């Protein structure tokens, strides 16, 4: 077995700069992705998923860092000092170093995720956490920790550590572009997780593939640790990498989508009246402000005689729910509330339940030519009405108003949009 001196050194070195600096660099890179975009603040589920997106680059670096911090333990000199030259001792040494490296990766990412969750939880109301996001985070970490440890066991040198970073990034890049079916890119939903959930069956497939890859690399690491000839170690390393990383793709595996729509109506929180503005529980930080800006945007419409009583603008998540008005503001930006003035006017001009307007866009609409014409007319009219409203609301930023568009026209246009029907005569007024 690994001698007492070896174990002592392994444990002691974990609390030295040799281990601490790589750990800090991994945390720095892993955490940096968080500040590249702050839209995730507000949604706990998206927070973890966004932090996981950082693993696209940080897990690649982790593979090299792991190889780097492992190098001293696989040098022949250490084996003598640690009395780890017998077969079983080499196996235990590999397993011990791998375990320590895994702790490095998991602890580093846990720090980043913990900070991100704390930011979201401490800055306002939020939604429920999605536990499977944590499972996904494990996958690239475990795979790349094993790859880095294997590489170090084969050739404990800085150059190999650098090459491992490059290899790991190439694998991640190919996984992201679906060139290789590998469970390495595990986060980064662009539009938030509202209306979405992680699929349990998909998670099982992803975890199963990751477990198989890790197993192959780990066994290869043990064989390399046992190998007395470098040619055998090289052969095992190359073969294991080929089988582990190309195997799933060559076997025809297709990793299923990690997320699926919940299919359930969103739990909404509302503010304002005439119109009411309603958003999902994870998007309520700026709700009062957004409702206020929407209310300001109603002024020109009210002057034209439009009545917003009973009108409700609701966030729709990832599915179109008939019978509800739609809040036409980017769902993923709701917690930032950083919308242009025109966006609020536009949210008003498409307020009603209108399958011809929303169905195609979200995926539930009919695809015949008639609905396409109707949809185009509705969209053109909505754009024209938005131009009219914004010109009245904000003289500084207005476009040249159409001379035919007066209050009466606006009232007609709004009513037509509310009923999802544009007459030919009204359509003729859209163009100058």
């Amino acid at each position, binding site marked *: 077995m690994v001698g007492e001196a070896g174990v002592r050194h392994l444990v002691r070195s974990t609390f030295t700069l040799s281990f601490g600096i790589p750990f800090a660099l991994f945390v*720095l890179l892993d955490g940096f*992705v968080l500040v590249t975009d702050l839209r995730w603040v507000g949604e706990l589920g998206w927070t973890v998923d966004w932090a996981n997106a950082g693993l696209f680059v940080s897990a690649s670096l982790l593979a090299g860092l792991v190889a780097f911090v492992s190098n001293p333990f696989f040098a022949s000199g250490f084996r003598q000092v640690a009395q780890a030259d017998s077969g079983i001792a080499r196996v235990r040494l590999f397993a011990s170093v791998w375990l320590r490296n895994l702790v490095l990766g998991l602890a580093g990412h846990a720090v980043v995720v913990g900070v991100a969750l704390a930011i979201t939880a401490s800055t306002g109301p939020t939604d429920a956490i999605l536990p499977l996001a944590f499972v996904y985070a494990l996958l690239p970490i475990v795979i790349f920790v094993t790859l880095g440890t294997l590489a170090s066991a084969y050739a404990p040198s800085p150059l190999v550590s650098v090459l491992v970073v490059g290899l790991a990034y190439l694998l991640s890049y190919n996984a992201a572009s679906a060139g290789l079916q590998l469970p390495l890119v595990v986060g*980064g939903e*662009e539009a938030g997780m509202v209306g979405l959930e992680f699929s349990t069956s998909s998670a099982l497939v992803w975890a199963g593939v990751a477990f198989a890859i890790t197993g192959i690399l780990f066994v290869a690491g043990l064989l390399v640790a046992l190998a007395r000839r470098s040619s055998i170690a090289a052969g095992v390393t190359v073969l294991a990498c080929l089988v582990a990383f190309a195997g799933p793709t060559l076997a025809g595996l297709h990793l299923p989508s990690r997320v699926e729509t919940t299919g359930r109506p969103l739990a909404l929180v509302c503010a304002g009246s005439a119109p009411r503005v309603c958003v999902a529980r994870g998007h309520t930080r700026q709700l009062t402000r957004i409702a206020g800006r929407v209310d300001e945007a109603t002024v020109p419409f009210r002057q034209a005689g439009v009545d917003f009583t009973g009108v409700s603008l609701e966030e729709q998540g990832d599915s179109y729910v008939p019978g509800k008005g739609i809040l036409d503001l980017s769902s993923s930006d709701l917690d930032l509330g950083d919308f242009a003035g025109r966006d609020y006017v536009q949210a008003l001009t498409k307020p009603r339940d209108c399958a011809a307007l929303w169905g195609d866009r979200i995926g539930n609409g009919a695809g015949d030519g008639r609905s396409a014409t109707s949809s185009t007319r509705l969209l053109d009219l909505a754009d024209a009405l938005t131009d009219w409203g914004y010109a009245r609301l904000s003289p500084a930023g207005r476009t040249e108003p159409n001379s035919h568009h007066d209050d009466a026209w606006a009232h007609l246009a709004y009513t037509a949009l509310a009923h999802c029907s544009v007459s030919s005569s009204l359509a003729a007024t859209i163009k100058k």
Partner: protein
Amino acid sequence: MPHLRDRWIVGLTAGRLVIALILLVVPTLVPIPGSDRVQPIAIFVPIAVAVPAALSLRERLAWLGTGVAARRLGILRMSTSFVADAVVLGTCSVLADVVSAPGVSLSAAVACAAAVEGVAYLTAVASVRFAWLVAATLGAIALLGLPPSGIPLAFSMPTWLGASVFVLGFVAYGLLSLRRIVVADPG
């Protein structure tokens, strides 16, 4: 016959020059995490230039210390080393000005590479061992962009800043190296 260390240094210098030139010239676009936009492959210039440079620092130090009996020779070799770096960065910079990519500054990628290399040099003042780790981390960070523009750091680094950090790092590292030579061989 050149010493192995010399070949190693020359190889890493020539290798990173070739890789950087390829990255600058090839118009491939790659996806970047945290962004829904693709970026020119030149985004990897900082990491591709700085990491091999940092990796060769230990060898450079050893090269500087090999058989050096006088400080003058140390300065000469340090200057050679500096010129090699300058040739790599300068060639890339000239090419970056010629080659253009839509919406990004390839010159900034070279400036970013200089900055990352400079920080690697500064790290080497404290510990040569960690220099490549720092270069790899910063090179990876350069792939990412900060709000509001979202432009990756690799494409938004001012030339003056990259050049300043590089010169600062090199001078600090050079002074340390010469001091080590003098300490090792006071005569």
